[in-house]
């Protein structure tokens, strides 16, 4: 019984923690390694110039399945301070970006919204600032919404902004701690790509791109998407002198995931082995029980139990023992997982890589029971119960009635 409890709980624990790690890694890689984007390159032969216009970028995005939009970032940025008044300000770097920027960089919105298409089209002054800037300028993140800011660049450029959203500043290097005056911590502020262009004197509609990146929905089959994107783009510019090629982002998520999954399965198999050991000890217990109950078996046969009903009785018994042990094992796992969840921050402190550590802490990465593993271990313990119950059960059934009755 103990053997099976240990076996079940190790299988469930390993699979649960493993799948939580896999998920965390998946999330970690999704933003930083570009698993949700692909890039297209336009090249021309025979000395011709060829590029895609700004309007065409959005037009193409609409034609491609699972594509959210082009990732655009203004060629220039304004480095300076965002002022409410002379007293309330925060160091900021203002960038003009397209709406998908938040997907590409995994920004966590604390309140309000990110830049959207209507901001882009209307060249509106909508801006998204960090919570650090919001606190510096408006006292709190909530107060920031709707607030007016003037970004004054070090070079003297001035841009007026209206705050529509606040994102969470990820303090990867612990800068915030070290700053005596929080107002001097430079964080990114975002406005629409188009508004920024307007402010820095760039004609957006005249822009041409030889290289552009699209952000896609997460978890799409990038291989398939890239090939269909290539087809659509090539058909659109059907000219032997031009070629358009699409490349997947620097993606390792799938490979890493499958590697992790193999590792986890190996560990789970090792844990499963302890289930088998538990099964053997169960068989031993059942054999002793059969021996002890020889007389009972004899009596049962004398009053009309057939061999098959004796086999059934003992098999049922071993399966029930296994299932009860399995339930205890699963309860134990819930307990362990609950304790782990309470002490996640302690666990994360053990991570040596700083950026991974802060990612784990800021994204509320947690551990939860993997229900597939619960199902698997329940099924597995039934199988163990039957497998290791058969021999004792058959042994019980094969007893001679007269010998069994005489057994003391």
């Amino acid at each position, binding site marked *: 019984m103990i053997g099976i409890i240990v076996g079940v709980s190790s299988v469930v624990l390993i699979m649960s923690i493993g799948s939580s790690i896999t998920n965390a890694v998946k999330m970690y890689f999704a933003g930083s390694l570009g698993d949700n984007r692909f890039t297209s390159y336009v090249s021309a032969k025979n000395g011709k110039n060829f590029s895609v216009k700004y309007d065409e970028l959005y037009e193409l995005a609409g034609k491609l399945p699972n594509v959210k939009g082009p990732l655009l970032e203004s060629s220039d940025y304004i480095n300076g301070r965002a002022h409410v008044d002379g007293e309330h300000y925060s160091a900021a770097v203002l960038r003009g970006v397209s709406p998908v920027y938040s997907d590409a960089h995994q920004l966590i919105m604390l309140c309000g919204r990110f830049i959207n298409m209507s901001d882009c089209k209307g060249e509106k002054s909508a801006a998204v600032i960090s919570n650090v800037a919001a606190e510096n300028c408006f006292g709190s993140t909530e107060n920031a919404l709707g607030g007016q800011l003037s970004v004054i660049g070090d070079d003297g450029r001035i841009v007026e902004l209206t705050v529509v959203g606040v994102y969470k500043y990820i303090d990867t290097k612990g800068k915030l701690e070290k700053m005596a005056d929080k107002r001097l911590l430079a964080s990114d502020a975002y406005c629409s790509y188009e508004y920024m262009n307007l402010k820095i004197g760039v004609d957006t509609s005249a822009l041409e791109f030889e290289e552009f990146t699209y952000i896609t929905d997460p978890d799409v089959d990038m291989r398939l998407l890239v090939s269909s994107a290539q087809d659509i783009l090539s058909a659109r510019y059907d000219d032997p002198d031009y070629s358009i090629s699409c490349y997947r982002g620097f993606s390792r998520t799938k490979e890493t995931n499958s590697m992790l999954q193999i590792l986890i399965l190996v560990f789970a198999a090792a844990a499963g082995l302890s289930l088998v050991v538990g099964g053997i000890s169960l068989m031993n217990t059942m054999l002793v029980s059969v021996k002890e109950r020889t007389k*009972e078996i004899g*009596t*049962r046969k004398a*009053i*009309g139990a057939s061999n098959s*009903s004796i086999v059934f009785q003992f098999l049922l018994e071993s399966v029930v023992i296994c299932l009860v042990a399995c339930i205890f094992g699963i309860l134990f796992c819930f307990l362990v997982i609950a304790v782990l969840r309470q002490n996640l921050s302690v666990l994360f402190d053990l991570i040596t890589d700083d950026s991974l550590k802060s990612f784990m802490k800021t994204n509320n990465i947690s551990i939860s029971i993997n229900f597939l593993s619960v199902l698997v271990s329940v099924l597995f313990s039934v199988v163990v119960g039957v497998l290791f119950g058969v021999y004792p059960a058959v042994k019980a059934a094969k007893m001679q009635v*007269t010998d069994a*009755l005489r057994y003391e």
Partner: protein
Amino acid sequence: MFDDYWHIYGESGSGKSTLMNIIGALDRPTEGEYYFNGVDISKLSDKKLSKIRNSTIGFVFQNFNLIPRTSALKNVELPMVYGKVPKKERISRAKELLDMVEMSSRYDHNPNELSGGQKQRVAIARAMANNPSIILADEPTGALDSKTGRTIMDLFHNLHSQGKTIVLITHNPELAKETERIVTISDGNIISDSRGSSGEDYSEIYNSEEWGEDNEN
């Protein structure tokens, strides 16, 4: 032989238990044949044998052989479980039988909470569960004091008067006298077969080899 009250009497090791095992279809004869209701027991499959044991034979053992950690009621129900009697019917029949052996107040007692005499009563109720044609009792009073043994014997008399065939095995000549017919065994042979109360001798009618066949048919 239905409607009979037999007594198989013999010293230890005389072969009476073996005879009982064969009559009860617990064992197959190493040689010879045994017909039970016209069926050759030695040729039956386990399934059919267990069916016969279940429905037509009731066993009462010297050491009661109740299933431990199982209530009196459940013990009496057990043969009916194997006989696939529906649950409701099973429970009411088991209660009826326990009432018959005056164990009404002990339905839920486990064997370890019962005295020897009470255990044997439950065992008798269990033997009667599927209304068998014959009850085999192997030294039913052997583990009981004489007073309790008396009440158990009275129970058997009672069952017999209700028309049950009863085969008793003892090595107690006093008890043997109470039955209609006494078969004495020694060294595996029947040496006498007589009327218990009247003393009439059957031994000339039967010899040991023909005994089984003639009577079971």
